[in-house]
């Protein structure tokens, strides 16, 4: 027989359920399908960037700066003669990693705080809510700027800061949803059955707030992408020669003056498209969830 600890080991809560929900959304909805495909493509491109990119994103060739589109350079080259397509492709890594980190942090912190607060209630809830309140006093971008002031430029500090800034939002949403869920008799029933708190939290409460979390995370991913791009734009995020899309837009901006808009244009378009798709998917997931819950 499996030891008791093993039996209550947390499975990935609702992962199957939410991927199923995603599939359902995609099957019914052409726009969502298009977005999904696009995002999948971007992720694939990011993962296999070295295989896909025709050139190295950092390979400078000063004699071939500002080339127009050609077979060799489908999107042309930038001020240093680097291949813009390759930079955009590698930029997917730099640009998606940050938001992923943000979401991971906001999820881990926010969901734990929320579940613990909702479950234990009383002074635990009061204390954690106070923490959430204080965190809530800092808009994401501002916290990121402070983090840069303290820890210096780069990806890590703004990413952590925005993750922390998103934590209270996630925590509030999850907490209220968990409180609502917690008040329902099925949770009471599991308590009366004698299930340990850990199991109730992981196997019953979390899976039921999970769709909301997924929808929220998706939308947050969109915002995190924009916020991190803004930080890069301000020169406080990733630094040259990174191919972060926000940074590329910022770097490419002066070249527009001289009529070379490609370096700013393409990463800008990809950035907007990715955010757009993520937002559309997030909203659809949220909608979907409402319809799916039993009518009460």
């Amino acid at each position: 027989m499996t030891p008791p600890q093993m039996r209550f080991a947390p499975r990935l809560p609702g992962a199957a359920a939410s991927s199923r929900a995603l599939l359902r959304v995609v099957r019914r909805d052409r726009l969502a399908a298009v977005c999904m495909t696009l995002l999948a493509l971007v992720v694939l491109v990011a993962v296999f960037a070295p295989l896909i990119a025709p050139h190295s994103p950092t390979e400078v060739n000063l004699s071939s700066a500002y080339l127009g589109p050609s077979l060799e350079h489908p999107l042309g080259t930038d001020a240093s003669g680097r291949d813009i397509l390759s930079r955009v492709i590698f930029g997917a890594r730099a640009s998606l990693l940050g938001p992923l980190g943000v979401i991971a942090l906001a999820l881990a912190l926010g969901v734990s705080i929320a579940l613990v607060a909702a479950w234990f209630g009383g002074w635990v809830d009061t204390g954690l809510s106070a923490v959430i309140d204080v965190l809530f006093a800092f808009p994401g971008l501002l916290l990121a700027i402070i983090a840069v002031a303290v820890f210096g430029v780069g990806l890590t500090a703004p990413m952590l800061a925005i993750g922390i800034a998103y934590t209270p939002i996630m925590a509030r949403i999850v907490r209220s949803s968990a409180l609502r869920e917690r008040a329902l008799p099925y949770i009471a029933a599991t308590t009366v059955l004698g299930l340990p708190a850990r199991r109730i939290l992981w196997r019953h409460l979390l899976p039921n707030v999970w769709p909301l979390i997924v929808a929220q995370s998706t939308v947050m991913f969109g915002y995190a992408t924009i916020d991190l791009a803004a930080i890069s734009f301000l020169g406080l995020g990733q630094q040259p020669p990174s191919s972060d899309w926000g940074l590329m837009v910022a770097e490419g901006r002066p070249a527009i003056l001289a009529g070379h808009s490609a370096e700013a244009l393409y990463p800008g378009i990809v950035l907007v498209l990715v955010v757009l798709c993520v937002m559309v998917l997030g909203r659809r997931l949220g909608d979907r969830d409402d319809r799916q819950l039993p009518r009460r």
Partner: protein
Amino acid sequence: MSALLELEHLRVTLPAEEGATAVLRDVSLQVGAGEAVGLVGASGSGKTMTARAVVRLLPPGAQVGGSIRFAGRSVLDLDREQLLRYRADDVAMVFQDPRSHINPVRRIGDFLTEALVLTQGMRRTAALAKVTRLLGETGVEEPERRLRQYPHELSGGQLQRVMIAAALACEPRLLIADEPTTALDVTTQSEVMAMLDEVRHARGLALLFITHDLDLAAAVCERTVVMRAGAIVDEQPVARADLLQQTAPASSTSAPASSTSAPAFFTSARASSTSAPACSTSAPEPAVLEVSGLCMVFAGLLAVDDVSFAVAPGASLAIVGESGSGKTTIARMIVGLQAPSAGAIAVLGHLRSRPPRGARERRTRGREAQIVFQDNYSSLDPRQRVGDALGEALDLHFRPTAEERRRRVAELLDSVGLKQEHARALPRALSGGERQRAALARALAVQPRLLVLDEAVSSLDVATQAQILDLLAGIRVATGTSYVFISHDLAVVRRVSDEVIVLRRGRIVERGATQQILTSPADPYTRLLLDSVPRPGWKPRRRAQ
């Protein structure tokens, strides 16, 4: 005299995810001027949809076929202006749930006068005077003050009266009342129905009265039609009390003989369970449940006030009382979901004044007492299959082998009258009754010594109710499980309990043997409560002034 309202072969189809569903398939009925017609049917049979079709307030995308005629005019052919006048002058609707049908952010006075001012062109002061009078007529105390209040400051009963007053304000010819009392407790229901009846007669209103309670319909209507699955069925309505009477003996003290109602599983498992005391009949056994001086205060509200009682092994105690009297609160305290403000609860002699320490004590307490909740819509984890829910309970308490678990789950499903396929179903795919049975099966899986049933059968149809009650009785005899049975349904109470306590505003007003209380109540409140329950030949009455 031709009918005021005439529905002929009314069909309504609603757009659904795949194709369209016919919500109403074939509805034909007539309401004469000044006539009261009852429309009865199970939940989801299409009663509300019929009412909405009459005022052409169907969900977007609805397709309507057949005809609706009001005073000879075809309602479906009215143009926009005519439709507005028709709604404003001819029909009025009292909706099912007043709390959600009255704008929560506008004052009561605003709600009441809105139609008068905006559709009848009445001056506001005149309108206010009129609705004040109407409110008084419908039995709302201090009507002037109410006008300045917001909906949430009124009780459900008061709000329902406001809704009726609003419907009467424009002096319609036909009043459609959609389950106007479902949300109310029996005593209030009786009052509201009496008021409605009075007002209708006084004004010669035609009434289409929608309810799922046949006795209630019979009490106020001249004629009753029955609806099932979107169509009027041409059959004589059956009173549910009769059904209960037929299928089960009136007294539960005599053991129900059928061995099938208590499956082998319960007896065998209980016998093998070492922690549970043997079920013997030896005389001075300690009470399974002992409650003394129990109090519960919610933000200044004394919800439970000094309640004491005991339940002996194998006994069944019923708690009755109007809505809000504290029944559920007591139930929750017994199983430890809520800590009492004062007083003591002991189950099998173990005090439950503090939360359980550690997993072992949790489990022990789980085996001592279980509960089946009032609200079947959410008493099961919406993401857990029924079989898994049962399996989880079994795993926790008995650690069966996979084989054993499967067998026991099958037995449990069988015993509550569920099919084996239901093991794989998610709660959302179950009907209300099926969900309730699954919840019951989960509670039974633990083989508790005490089972608290909070309105556990109220949402079931009569036949299923009878079956479950049989099962409960069987288990009680076979295993000596004790019950605390909460219900407002006196017929059910009569059938399952030996003893009754009557609760009013958190206090016990009367207690005693079931038979005695139900037949000759001593307390006036108990009498009122009994009088308010619709039954054949019953008439709603206003509370004695």
